[in-house]
């Protein structure tokens, strides 16, 4: 088991956004978290990555408790995330953005006198080719298309060479073609690089097309967890989320 949450809970004032969610994420899985708007998916991500402190409960990564570690430490342990609202470096070139992730991950950011561009050229190009952004390497982050920005963020997260990658709505706002190629890419990352992927998604065809396991959140509570078939068959899930049509 790669990641485990034990009764993890987050309260914002009187609102309990995530309610005692206990979940195991297995190594090598592509694991989807689904649920209607406001189900607590993003908050759950924020608890795993250290964006929010948990009200109570535990997060374990590779059997070590990380509940109280700051976000940057969790990242150095091998947990990286993307954000629902694409978070990139608008004034960095595509190349520089991925380079930044590698500089940080490989711990050379405390070098003061060597030139940043001489590091990790091969590795940066490999990542850019994987996400098909190599031909825009010199373009600024804010000058590329929305779909490319999403893929750039994915490329940046790959620069940290994560073991566990959390993607918050990776295809949000993409055209059907972009969605398809992004999902193929995620599948490829999982098989070729062995990255465990935890993602949230609105598009059910995407989720059922790629996920090996699906967990369903409803009003902060975990109501189903299992294979796509099992989740699809669950009556409770149909009632609250799939509207009985799935």
């Amino acid at each position, binding site marked *: 088991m790669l990641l485990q949450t034990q009764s993890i809970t987050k309260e914002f004032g009187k609102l309990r956004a995530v309610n005692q969610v206990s979940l195991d994420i297995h190594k090598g899985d592509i694991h989807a978290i689904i649920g209607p708007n406001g189900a607590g998916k993003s908050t759950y991500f924020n608890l795993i*990555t250290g*964006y929010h402190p948990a009200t109570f409960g535990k997060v374990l990564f590779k059997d070590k408790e990380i509940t109280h570690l*700051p*976000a*940057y*430490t969790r*990242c*150095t342990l091998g947990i*990286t*995330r993307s*954000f629902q609202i694409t*978070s*990139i*470096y*608008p*004034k*960095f*070139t*595509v*190349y*520089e953005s991925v*380079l*930044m*992730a590698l*500089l*940080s*991950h490989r711990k*050379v*950011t*405390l*070098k*003061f*006198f*060597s*030139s*940043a*561009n001489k*590091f990790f*050229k091969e590795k940066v*190009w490999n990542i850019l080719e994987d996400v098909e952004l*190599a*031909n825009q*390497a*010199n373009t600024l982050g804010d000058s590329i298309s929305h779909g490319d920005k999403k893929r750039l963020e994915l490329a*940046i997260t790959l*620069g*940290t060479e994560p073991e566990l990658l959390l993607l918050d709505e990776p295809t949000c706002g993409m055209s059907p073609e972009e969605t398809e190629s992004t999902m193929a890419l995620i599948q490829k990352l999982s098989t070729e690089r062995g990255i465990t992927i935890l993602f949230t998604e609105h598009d059910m065809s995407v989720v059922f097309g790629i996920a090996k396991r699906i967990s369903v959140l409803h009003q902060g509570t975990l109501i189903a967890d299992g294979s796509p078939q099992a989740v699809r068959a669950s009556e409770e899930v149909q009632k609250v989320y799939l509207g009985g049509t799935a």
Partner: protein
Amino acid sequence: MMQRSEVAVNNSTIKRSWWLILLIIAFLIAPLVMSKFYLTILCEALVMSLFALSFNLLFGYMGQLSFGQAAFYGLGGYVVAMLITKLQFNFWLSLAAGAGMAGLVGLIVGYFCVRLRGIYFAVLTLAFGQLIFVIIFKWHKFTGGDDGIQGVFPPEYLRSIEAYYYLIFFVCAISAFILWRIVNSPFGQALKAMRENPERTEFLGIHIARYQLIAFVIAAAFAGLAGAVWVPFYRSVAPSYLTWIKSGEPVMAAILGGPNIFFGPVLGMFIMTFVHSYILGFTHFWPVIMGTIILIIIFVLPGGILEFAKVKITERREKAKIAKGQT
């Protein structure tokens, strides 16, 4: 498809270094062709440029507006003045001590400031700056209070304006070179990343406060060095070196020249220093004129003079490329 061999990192400053070599030659022969009056102004412009570069490490590269940078500049000056006049300390060691003390105080002040962002960071640096100013201003027995300290002489061989000019030039040139290496290093890249998107950067494994503190100390030490090298030239130091008005000078210089380009603040400081000395010849309304210049820059050239020039040059090159048919 782009070739892998193409360097993709933005590194525009010194791609063609011919102009830099010309500039260095010009600085080296300046004492031979300039009057003593203008050489003095040039010395001031150089020192203030180093001060502005130190400030811009925080402002232009790290994205935090420090409004207390003069405290470190003044501290460097005071340390040198006290060591030389009270203890007859070695001149060169005094310069190092000035920079070191500024860096040390920067460590303490920075420890509190780097936890904050934006206006809160600016206000806290301002508050610490004023605090250090008040201590020096009020502690008459130790610092000379509002009288300052006079009679700060450099060693015999550096007493002529020309000799001291070369000292200032080399200190500033070497410091600028070091700062230039820093902003282009992986550390510099991390600073820029924090400016661009602190959240993304933290989620790449960077401890933001720690990196900002390191940058704060470096900036304080170089500001201290600028003050330290200036005071023996001017033969005296006064509390006015630490005021918030002094802290505002590098802010204006950076906005004038362009904070996103390494030499932007240097150009800004040169314009400010020379225009100031020229205008003082016929009016005392210098602040009005400076204010007008800043106003024009902000509305007409929002990225500063060098940024504007860079954009124009890039546009021209693009047009030339299109004209040649290699789009």
